[in-house]
């Protein structure tokens, strides 16, 4: 991510003690988002990326069960704002966003891409990056909004 530059950057760090807390943060973010938002989810296996998206989907009033998209690469859920839930895990760095079929959907959906750090090309400039890491007590979620729209969303999330 580019160096933080004032107006177009916002960051929020949250410690989550349980999957429910991870989900709750996702839900709050989901309630704020409009179509065209791109969320890059980054974190090791079992960190809670899909759990976060389950909350996000709730906040977006997205329909259908949110399960791991690893196998199917992408699932589209209709909702207040449609959610494209994608996963680059199986691509192994060999493919790009166009391969996932995300590009044509990006304007009308909220895109949540798991394993975004393994994709071989550049992500949209205006994006929310969520990094999840393990801590002693649970998880640390670091949410960064870059660009006018995404930084506003993260700012609105701040307490």
């Amino acid at each position, binding site marked *: 991510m580019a160096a933080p530059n004032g107006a177009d950057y916002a960051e929020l760090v949250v410690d989550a003690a349980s999957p429910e807390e991870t989900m709750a943060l996702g839900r709050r973010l989901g309630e704020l988002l409009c179509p065209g938002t791109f969320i890059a989810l980054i974190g090791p*296996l079992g960190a809670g990326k899909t759990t976060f998206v389950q909350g996000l989907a709730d906040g977006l009033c997205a329909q259908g*069960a949110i*399960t791991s998209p*690893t196998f199917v690469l992408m699932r589209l859920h209709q909702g207040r704002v449609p959610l494209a839930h994608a996963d680059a895990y199986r691509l192994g760095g060999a*493919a790009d966003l166009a391969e996932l079929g995300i590009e044509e959907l990006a304007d009308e959906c909220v895109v949540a891409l798991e394993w975004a750090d393994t994709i071989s090309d550049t992500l949209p400039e205006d994006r929310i990056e969520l990094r999840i890491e393990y801590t002693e007590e649970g998880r640390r979620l670091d949410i960064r909004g870059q660009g006018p729209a995404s930084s506003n969303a993260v700012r609105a999330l701040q307490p």
Partner: protein
Amino acid sequence: MQLSDTDLVLGIESSCDETAAAIVRGGREILSNIVASQEEMHAHFGGIVPEVASRRHAELITVVVESALRDAFVGWRDLALLAVTRGPGLVGSLLVGVSAAKGYALATGLPLVGVNHLAGHITSSFLLAAGGTEPAPREFPALALVASGGHSDLALIEDLGRYRRVGWTRDDAAGEALDKAARLLGLGYPGGPAIERAAADGDPHAVDLPRPDTKDGFEFSFAGLKTALVRILKNNDVQQSTHFTADLAASFQEAVVDCLVRETVEAALHFRARQIVIAGGVAANRRLRESMATAAGRHGLSAYFPPMSLCTDNAAMVAAAGYFEAAKHPPDPQQMLSMKVDAALELPA
């Protein structure tokens, strides 16, 4: 649609990594079963490239279909029906199979039926494979577990061609959990067989892992199990001991198997199933076979597994599922060519 015990069906499958075609007689007897896998290619790229996968399916599909006909010693005129997987799977890959099937239907005048890939897996236990074990008897209702990299579904088989989804996973599929555990343990790809190999030298009770029970309904949840493994790896230096890796692999496999067996047997009892059938790539796991047979036996139930060659994706199961689907829902010649693929297709609730 009236189909006889001798009618031949050509099945076509291209939903994921395998390009496959098969000829099946009477929804039961496999005359040919051709599978071309892309696994090696994915290993070469270090992952799956959907565009490349679709192109590869397109290159292989006619070769595979012609091989299936040749191996079965039959021609187009001998067939009664065409069946093709229309979902779930990768859109681009599904499109290749469905487009090819439409082309064959148009050229031959044969009826074409679209098949749910999961119905295919369920049907595989009822197939008679050369040199295979005795297929499951046609006694219903039966309870099916379909466990693979992409699915962990429980289905009630009311009759062949009539399936109802009664259980599913909340997060990861069973095969996906095994695959990711293999990656965490550095055991390589494909993960399922790698875990099973490593587990052979390990103690399944060496490490205490959770068996999440979702309580409501027949749901699986494997994400917590994956997280528990990550925690253990963080607190222990696994690289130091291949023995510990074997114990972890065995314990993880045991936890996955326990969850699969518990929900499957509970569902079978709940729906008063007369037998249990298990399908999908994870059905190849020997520990699952053993454990499921024992648990089912305790309740006077038999558990049937397809031969190993029919556990993974193949077109024989698609041909057979198409045979039973067409008997229940005759294909409409007006609608056949407008058949659409559905990447997120599920079994009816």
